[in-house]
């Protein structure tokens, strides 16, 4: 029987790299889509608003696991074979987009209405108002909840193992199946998750403090 040693630890670390890669990709693509949906939710055009609202409602109301199953098994039933990494990235990006869209919509809406009035009164266009007045303030408001969500995302990527993708969690399980040293292995896995998430949590806490201390910087 194998024992838990350096080769196993290296294997787990490599898989942690995949977890990180997946998180980064899902967050990046999800941000772009989520940002677009946040703006659509606030659009003056009613069907855009409704479409974005519907998308967010649907995605938030079904488990991300279902999105993953649909993009992996569903599409393959239709003859489209997505590699696990692609299916995982795509479904996580969709999941991220729906949540970030809501966080960011809320942040934009929490900029006081008078800021809009002041900006428009100074002959700014709506686009200039967004760019120079609303978004810089909204970004500050949104930073702590966005980083908080990112921490959740790191941990939630572990669901991608169901389509056969070997992430940090799956790697731990595979090593456990070979060595039966569950305690040591999962301590290492937990430590790695912690090492990723803890700095992010601290960052979120820090941002919150900085923003409360002086809204002027």
């Amino acid at each position, binding site marked *: 029987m194998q024992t838990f040693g350096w080769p196993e630890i290296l294997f787990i670390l490599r898989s942690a790299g995949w977890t990180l890669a997946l998180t980064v990709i899902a967050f990046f693509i999800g941000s772009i889509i989520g940002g677009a949906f946040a703006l659509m939710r606030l659009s003056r055009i009613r069907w855009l608003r409704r479409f974005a609202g519907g998308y967010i409602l649907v995605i938030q109301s079904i488990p991300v696991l279902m999105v993953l199953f649909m993009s992996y098994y569903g599409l393959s039933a239709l003859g489209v074979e997505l590699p696990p990494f692609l299916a995982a990235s795509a479904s996580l990006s969709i999941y991220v987009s729906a949540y970030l869209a809501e966080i960011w919509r809320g942040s934009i809406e929490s900029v006081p209405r*008078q*800021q809009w009035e002041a900006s*428009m*009164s100074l*002959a700014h*266009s709506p686009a*200039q108002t967004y760019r120079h007045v609303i978004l810089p303030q909204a970004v*500050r408001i949104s930073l702590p909840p966005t980083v908080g969500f990112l921490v959740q995302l790191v941990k939630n990527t572990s669901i991608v193992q169901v389509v056969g993708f070997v992430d940090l969690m799956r790697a731990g399980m595979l090593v456990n199946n070979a060595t039966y040293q569950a305690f040591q292995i999962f301590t290492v896995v937990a430590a790695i998750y912690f090492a990723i998430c803890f700095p992010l949590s601290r960052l979120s806490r820090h941002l919150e403090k900085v923003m409360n201390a002086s809204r*002027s910087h």
Partner: protein
Amino acid sequence: MPAVLIEDIHKRFGSLEVLKGVSLSVDTGQVVAIIGRSGSGKSTLLRCINGLETFHAGKIEVAGHVMTQDPTKLRELRKDVGIVFQSYNLFPHLTVGQNIMLSPRITKNVPQAQALALAKDVLAQVGLSEKFDSYPDNLSGGQQQRVAIARSLAMQPKVMLFDEVTSALDPELTGEVLIVMEKLAKGGMTMLLVTHEMNFARTVADTTVFMHQGLIWESGPSKELFANPQTPELANFVKAGAH
């Protein structure tokens, strides 16, 4: 041609008619104070003049622009019509200098160096040159309001609107704002101001307009209007406003 021409403006909020046919003409360089109880429609009227509120009937012309809903034309109008609000509404993420320079730069493509000179000039006019690099949160209410006036002036407007600009200020801070406004008035700026400062209206405004129930109830040269109200409504209002 008058700087501001308002003809028979009607405005409803739902079934509530807040402006019931208001007409008013303001000449270039004239200072007009609009007074009246809350709900008399005075702020709504003022906000119609730069398109922050729409109206259902009537016509407004300001600084040579006809009021319109067309966004491009409305922006052209707003370049010539400044407004200062009760709640200052400075941009909190920008320094005082940046607050002032932003609009000339992005709406009129004023070069950086020129915008900087402009900002220093208007800031000196409101007596806050030393606050150029401060953030709004670090200023008192009175200082913030003076910066808001400076920000408006940097657009070099032909008409300035003031919407109860001292109402949110502690009494000891209203003076510094009123002094700046008086200086502007003496400098020939065309001004319309909605105000509760009766003294200021009486002494600085050429004309005072008393609004009541969505109508101009009474108007005339300020000193006469305050000395001899022709309607019981104004007489009561003036008496109550004397504190």
